[in-house]
């Protein structure tokens, strides 16, 4: 086998121009594939991260049935305090109670539908990226009752501020269904996350103000949970499912991961994995023809030589191996070079980020920022190697069979 490897290796060098062309095509093709796949992963991951870090949270606890029917009356009692405390016994977990409801925000000139989100600012800052996204001001603080001069605060997204034509400190009126659902507020903060859709649709109030506006008493609708290490999510979910009913035995709960709350987003992640496979498969299918062509040419040129090897007593099986090894060396060489080039390119782009300011309007509607950071998963690197191996064998079958099927005398007569 060593001798066959040696001969195959030297044969590749003998036709170095042809080998170089095939190798370059493989390298560039695979690198381009990796960049494409890295790109897709990058923006889908950003989209997921953006959604999880703002609206969804990794894990959420609701009163049972809230996900299917987000009724404002379906609350968790006592401000969810016992549940929050229980959740935070899990190492690395942070929880934030939220009161949620539909509403309308009205400025002097415009109005818009919003989701009212009541939060405790210091808690929300631990689970949500919104706290880090303020371009002016911040979350509203609690309004002391009975103090006449101060209006309660509301924080909105930059896109909504533009729609309403308001700035920090301006007055707006919030409406919510119910008897108490009307109040004047002052813009306490303006944020800009990666998602324009989020920025247009959310209005953050202090938890108590929201509870008052929504008529929710001391109830909350959601406990949003973040984790220092998101890979712990399954363990946290199991912990929550086991522990929370013990804390509130009389309160039916639902514990949902972000994937359960946004199955479409989760499906996109899976789709990206399949897309990577399809991209690779198409690339290698195309390359298989190129490699087969190069091998076939080189086999045709050497038929006489194969005749000599066969007449010296080289078994047909070993001749097949020789051609297969040539193909394997060429393809694996190209795959490794392509992986090196592609991974370097993705790594570099992932570090620096690719600025798409020109398209950012469109991207931010998808929940992706103006700068995309391509990234690769471990599986993205394993699959092309496997496919390269398959391609090498597939491409070499016909040339190898051709080489081995000739009778020595016939091959020796070949001109």
């Amino acid at each position, binding site marked *: 086998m060593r*001798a066959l490897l040696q*001969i195959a290796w*030297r*044969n590749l*060098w*003998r036709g170095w121009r042809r080998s170089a062309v095939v190798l370059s095509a493989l390298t560039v093709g695979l690198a381009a594939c990796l960049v494409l796949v890295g790109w897709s992963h990058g923006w889908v991951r950003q989209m997921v991260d953006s959604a999880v870090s703002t609206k969804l949270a990794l894990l959420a606890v609701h009163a049972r049935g809230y996900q299917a029917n987000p009724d404002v009356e379906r609350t968790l009692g006592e401000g969810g305090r016992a549940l929050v405390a229980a959740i935070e016994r899990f190492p690395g977990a942070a929880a934030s109670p939220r009161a949620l409801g539909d509403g309308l925000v009205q400025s002097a000139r415009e109005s818009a539908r919003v989701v009212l989100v009541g939060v405790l600012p210091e808690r929300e800052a631990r689970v949500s990226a919104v706290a880090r996204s303020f371009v002016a001001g911040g979350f509203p603080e609690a309004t002391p009752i009975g103090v006449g001069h101060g209006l309660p605060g509301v924080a909105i997204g930059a896109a909504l501020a533009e729609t309403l034509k308001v700035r920090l400190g301006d007055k707006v009126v919030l409406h919510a269904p119910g008897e108490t659902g009307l109040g004047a507020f002052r813009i306490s903060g303006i944020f800009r996350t990666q998602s324009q859709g989020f920025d247009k649709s959310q209005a953050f109030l202090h938890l108590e103000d929201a509870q008052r506006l929504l008529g929710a008493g001391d109830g909350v609708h959601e406990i949003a949970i973040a984790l220092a290490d998101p890979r712990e999510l399954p363990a946290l979910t199991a912990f929550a499912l086991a522990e929370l009913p013990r804390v509130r035995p009389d309160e039916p709960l639902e514990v949902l991961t972000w994937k359960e709350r946004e199955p479409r987003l989760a499906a996109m992640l899976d789709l990206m994995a399949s897309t990577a496979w399809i991209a690779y498969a198409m690339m290698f299918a195309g390359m298989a023809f190129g490699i087969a062509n190069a091998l076939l040419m080189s086999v045709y040129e050497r038929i*006489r*030589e194969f*005749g*000599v*090897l*066969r*007449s*010296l*007593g*080289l*078994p*047909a*099986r070993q001749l097949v191996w020789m051609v297969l090894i040539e193909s394997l060396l060429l393809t694996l060489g190209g795959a490794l070079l392509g992986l090196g080039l592609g991974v370097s390119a993705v790594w570099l782009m992932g570090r620096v980020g690719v600025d798409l300011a020109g398209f950012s309007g469109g991207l931010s509607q998808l929940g992706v920022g103006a700068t995309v950071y391509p990234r690769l998963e471990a599986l993205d690197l394993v699959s092309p190697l496997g496919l390269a191996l398959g391609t090498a064998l597939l491409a070499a079958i016909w040339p190898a069979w051709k080489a081995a099927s000739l*009778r*020595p*005398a*016939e091959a*020796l007569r070949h001109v």
Partner: protein
Amino acid sequence: MAETVLEAQRVTKIYRAGAIETVALSDVDLVVERGEFSALSGPSGSGKTTLLNLLGTLDRPTRGRVFVSGQDTTEMREAERAHLRLRKLGFVFQAYNLVPVLSALENVEFVLLLQGVPTAERHRRALAFLRELGLAELAEKRPNEMSGGQQQRVAVARAIASDPEIVLADEPTANLDSKTAEDLLDLMQRLNRERGVTFLFSTHDPRVMARARRVVRLVDGQIASEERRGE
């Protein structure tokens, strides 16, 4: 009585190209014995190379039987024939046909490698052959760095390296100038005399025929005459 190395019994070879049939050999009987230095002669198209290929198991006869060291090769599978060639037969071709990507030494070693000779032993034996044939200085050279005569001498070294029963040489001098051809024939004659290597040539080179102790003349795919000479 001398031992039979090769035997053709009523061998016929017909080539078919579409509807056209060409009879290359017709009912040829031939026996080659150990120690011979023989030539198959005849004009172009007389069937010399065809007969040599059939005797060397490089091709299969349309009819008749070919025996190598008493073994009937006619019904053998291709793998068995390859094994037989590896163990019993050596070949020298008109166009030298060394493996271009291997050095002279590696070309000689290649057959030993196929025979499963261990690396050190293989290397020692191949080098010894090259030395014996005065080719030691070419050991590391590739075929494209050697003259035609040098390549053909390496090809002879390769053919005898496996210690075959017989070396089949197809027009070995056809591409060589007179001096180089004479040198090559000297070499093969010496190997025949000193090492007892059996040679069978196909040739129309008078220099080869002049040295052969037996000349079998083929005309139109049949044996027309046979001449035996003393040394």
